[in-house]
């Protein structure tokens, strides 16, 4: 083995570092640290079983409703479509563990830990800023905490999840964006947040 190299590089390196504005900041942006992000697909007759496996592995209830989610940053399950989930966990061996527990007869496991990055948008104007690009009704009645949606901002596909308000306080959303689009999306987001002012918290602090 040759000398150790620092292996993982975020596509937002040099962009998502902490930034405190001089004026108001009604929005806080944070690049989250994603350890494991895995997509699990089941077959129609195994969907319930697979959902149960996910819930027990992550240690939370199965997501409620068709586009719901459960869990928190320690481990979360996001329902993407019938029989498809995005599973996030701080366990670096998540994909391998899921692969062991979900054999081909039950479904398919695809590691996407490097495919997406996660950005948290929070603060009183979080929904206002996101509504500049997302054609989604983000009103808490229509998009309550734990709800998940897949949509796009200027052709950039995003998975959006509203977080539970009681745990985090205020309005918070987690966005999962494909890596290759990350910088383009970040540029869009910071421009959209310029009106209300925004703060960037250090990467990994959310």
């Amino acid at each position, binding site marked *: 083995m040759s000398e150790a190299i620092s292996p993982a590089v975020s596509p937002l390196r040099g962009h998502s570092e902490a930034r405190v504005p001089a004026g108001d900041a009604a929005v806080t942006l944070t690049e989250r640290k994603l350890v494991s992000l895995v997509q699990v697909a089941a077959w*129609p007759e195994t*969907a319930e079983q697979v959902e149960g496996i996910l819930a027990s592995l992550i240690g939370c209830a199965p997501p409620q409703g*068709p586009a719901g989610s459960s869990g928190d940053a320690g481990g979360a399950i996001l329902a993407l479509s019938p029989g498809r989930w995005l599973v996030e966990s701080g366990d670096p061996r998540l994909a391998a563990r899921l692969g062991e527990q979900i054999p081909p007869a039950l479904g398919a496991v695809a590691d996407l830990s490097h495919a997406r990055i996660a950005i948290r948008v929070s603060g009183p104007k979080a929904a206002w800023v996101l509504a500049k690009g997302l*054609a989604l009704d983000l009103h808490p009645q229509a998009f309550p905490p734990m709800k998940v949606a897949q949509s796009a901002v200027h052709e950039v*596909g995003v998975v959006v999840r509203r977080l539970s308000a009681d745990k985090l306080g205020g309005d918070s959303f987690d966005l999962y964006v494909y890596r290759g689009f990350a910088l383009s999306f970040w540029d869009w987001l910071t421009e959209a947040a310029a009106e209300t002012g925004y703060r960037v918290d250090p990467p990994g602090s959310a």
Partner: protein
Amino acid sequence: MLIPCPHCGPRDVAEFTYGGDATKERPNPDSATAEDWCDYVFHRDNPRGRHVEYWHHGQGCRLWLKVARDTVTHKIEGAEVVGPWAAAAPKQGRDVA
């Protein structure tokens, strides 16, 4: 135009890709004639009014849908998921088929 995705709810048409006439069934390659194939691949009606068509929710849940749309008013009568997950998401509006 909004398309009522059975999984995601109503979404802007920009999130979808049109997939063409959904009444055409792919011929069985074991028995189909050249005419059957020609009809499946090339022949399309251009109805004024109700049209059942495929739409792919590519910027959303990635499900393929069958949608009944009025080509004059753009009103969507109904939408449903195509394929193995058809039963897993509620049909929207009236029956498409």
